């Protein structure tokens, strides 16, 4: 039997300062997945890391490793952060709860911005990465595929994503609260990744005087600038660009702040104390939070913007309820499918065991009745088979289709194995971790 575990934190449980310490870049995710595979060979793993959440999904045989505390330890060691700093913000879910959580995440029901579609792409990306690293297996493959399908279903079958507010649209709205016109403004994008593109798409519609894209990789900067009719800018001349800019969008993958208070403070005079709107949507943050305390600086990070989105977001229609119903139905459906799949080998063994017993008893009886012809023997064989099938029908049906909780299901499985002396394919290695905080 496989056990699904989820360990993670999100915008609701952890502040930005904690999340940014534990965020995984793509390279780090690859590295971490390889690490998990080496350390826990029996486990499957997927890491979902976005600006709002860091989640580690593990599937492993019930008595195998890693245990939840080992998952915490792994995350801490990987980022060189002591578990005490982040463990109070962690949540731990197992089996059905973990499935429900992932489906909610993929459907954006767990997002700060309800109905945002970006998360679906991020779930898919996490799964693709795990697949390419061969760390997703028999459980996580179907789980993530189904999660993506559920996310799509919610987006298309409900109105949850309609009239949706995004971080980018809120950023533009805030820019309008600071600036009246944009035909004399310069917008500077630091970074040329997906998030920067998303935000620039909105800002480009304001028809600014200049749009600069500054990136370490100049080729990427040129590509993005060309797309929005802007110009690329050398990263080495960042200070000069900051003097010119009225709006700054920061979305790089840098691990340390790019704009420090020491860098920006002297530039204010050169800027003639013009107001500047800075949007830091990077994770970890690109702009030192102290920059936002300076006069004439309006600094908004991802949490600030998402908070606004959430506040202004309309949850007026029944789309949320409809989305929840879809997710709930899909969780049940996946649970049944998974259970049936998990039970398959056991039921096969159960039938094989009983049919074998019946056949043995039948042979013994037939040996004492040599006068029987072939047709009569076939009748007896058929009788034995039907008796076994009839006897096993009810318990098997209950095992397959019932709505029993996972813990009870495991108890049944163990009981069946013990009572009927069925050989278990997995060999117990460690004590079960069913006593974990969210074990079901």
């Amino acid at each position, binding site marked *: 039997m496989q056990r699904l575990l989820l360990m993670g934190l999100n915008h609701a449980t952890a502040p930005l300062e904690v999340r940014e310490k534990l965020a995984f870049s793509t390279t780090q995710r690859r590295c971490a997945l390889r690490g998990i595979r080496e350390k826990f060979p029996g486990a499957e793993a997927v890491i979902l890391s976005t600006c709002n959440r860091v989640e580690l999904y593990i599937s492993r045989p019930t008595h195998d490793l890693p245990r939840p505390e080992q998952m915490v330890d792994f995350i801490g060691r990987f980022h060189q952060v002591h578990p005490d700093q982040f463990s109070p913000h962690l949540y731990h879910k197992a089996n059905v709860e973990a499935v429900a959580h992932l489906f909610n995440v993929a459907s954006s029901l767990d997002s700060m911005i309800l109905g945002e579609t970006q998360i679906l792409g991020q779930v898919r990306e996490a799964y693709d990465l795990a697949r390419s690293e061969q760390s997703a297996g028999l459980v996580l493959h179907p789980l993530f595929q189904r999660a993506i399908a559920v996310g799509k279903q919610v987006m298309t079958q409900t109105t949850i994503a309609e009239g949706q507010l995004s971080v980018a649209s809120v950023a533009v709205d*805030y820019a*309008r*609260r*600071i*600036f*009246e*016109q944009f035909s004399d403004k310069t917008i500077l994008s630091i970074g040329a990744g997906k998030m920067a593109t998303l935000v620039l798409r909105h800002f480009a519609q304001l028809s600014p005087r200049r749009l600069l894209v500054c990136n370490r990789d100049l080729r990427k900067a040129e590509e993005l600038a060309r797309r929005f009719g802007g110009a690329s800018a050398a990263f080495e001349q960042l200070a000069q660009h900051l003097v010119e800019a009225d709006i700054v969008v920061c979305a790089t993958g840098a691990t340390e702040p790019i704009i420090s208070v020491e860098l920006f403070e002297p530039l204010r005079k050169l800027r*003639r*104390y*013009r*107001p500047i709107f800075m949007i830091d949507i990077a994770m970890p943050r690109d702009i030192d939070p102290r920059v*936002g305390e300076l*006069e*004439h600086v*309006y600094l*908004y990070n991802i949490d*600030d913007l998402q*908070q*606004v989105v959430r*506040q*202004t977001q309309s949850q007026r229609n029944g789309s949320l309820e409809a989305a929840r119903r879809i997710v709930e139905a899909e969780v049940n459906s996946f649970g049944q499918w998974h259970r049936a799949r998990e039970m398959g080998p056991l039921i096969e063994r159960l039938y094989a065991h009983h049919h074998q017993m019946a056949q043995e008893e039948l042979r013994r009886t037939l040996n004492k009745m040599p006068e029987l012809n072939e047709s009569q023997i076939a009748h007896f064989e058929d009788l034995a088979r039907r008796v076994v099938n009839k006897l096993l029908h009810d318990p098997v049906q209950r095992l397959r289709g019932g709505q029993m909780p996972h813990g009870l299901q495991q108890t049944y499985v163990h009981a069946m194995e013990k009572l009927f002396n069925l050989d278990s394919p997995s060999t117990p290695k460690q004590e079960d971790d069913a006593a974990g905080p969210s074990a079901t």
Partner: protein
Amino acid sequence: MSPNPGQLGLLTASVIFFAVGGVLSLLRVFRHKPGLRLPAKICAYVGIAMALAVLVWHGRIRGSWYPLEDNFDALIWLGVLLALFVQYVQRQRPLGGLDWFIMPVVILLLVAAGVFGQISPREYIDSTWSIVHRVSSYGGAVAFAVAGATGTMYLIHNRRLRRKTVRPELDFGSLERLERISMVSVTLGFALLSIGLITGIAEVIHLGQYTSLGINRMTQPKVLLAFAVWLIYALVLHTPINPRMRGRRAATLSILGFVLMIGALVAVQFMPGGTR
């Protein structure tokens, strides 16, 4: 000439309409009742119409159509001009919340007209200097009222933006627009006040430095406050040269200037020897 009870009654009705309009405007935003926009607007226009009717009635009884001949007349004109400014801005390019800041000033001016106009009516002196002095001074006060209101809005909006507590229903427009309106008002008000001060000095020279009671006209509180206001707005106008002043500081000074301007207007009422 003192206003008669009928004029005071009409003025009171005008104040009530402005107040009801303001309450409806607030309810529209805070209770999310967009349907109240029209009643609020109607109330404001009825208030303006009533105040204008008072001016017409007062002028007719006085037998003169010259504006600003006495306190009653001058303060009502001031209030009406401010109310018209609000309606003009809201019609051309609405600036959310502008009426909340200016209409109370309008109401205060109308109440002041009722109080001071009745108690201490002023004599009209038929001189060109005096007319120019009054028109420019009151015109300056209107502009400074606008600057003070937009300055207050700027400070509130700026504070909300910095604290990230902006509420979508309380849209004050953009900081840039508030700053621009404030600067235009200050520039206009400063020019008018400068003319008011110069013509005032000319009038002092014409009448003599001391009143019949032996009071130095140049050191009267009204004059000193008017000079203080002039200096403050000179500082605000300094902003393009010294950008460090822009934003919060300029807005604060605009408010301070407006408060002193109110002080000057009130001081006029208690000055011995009339308005001059």
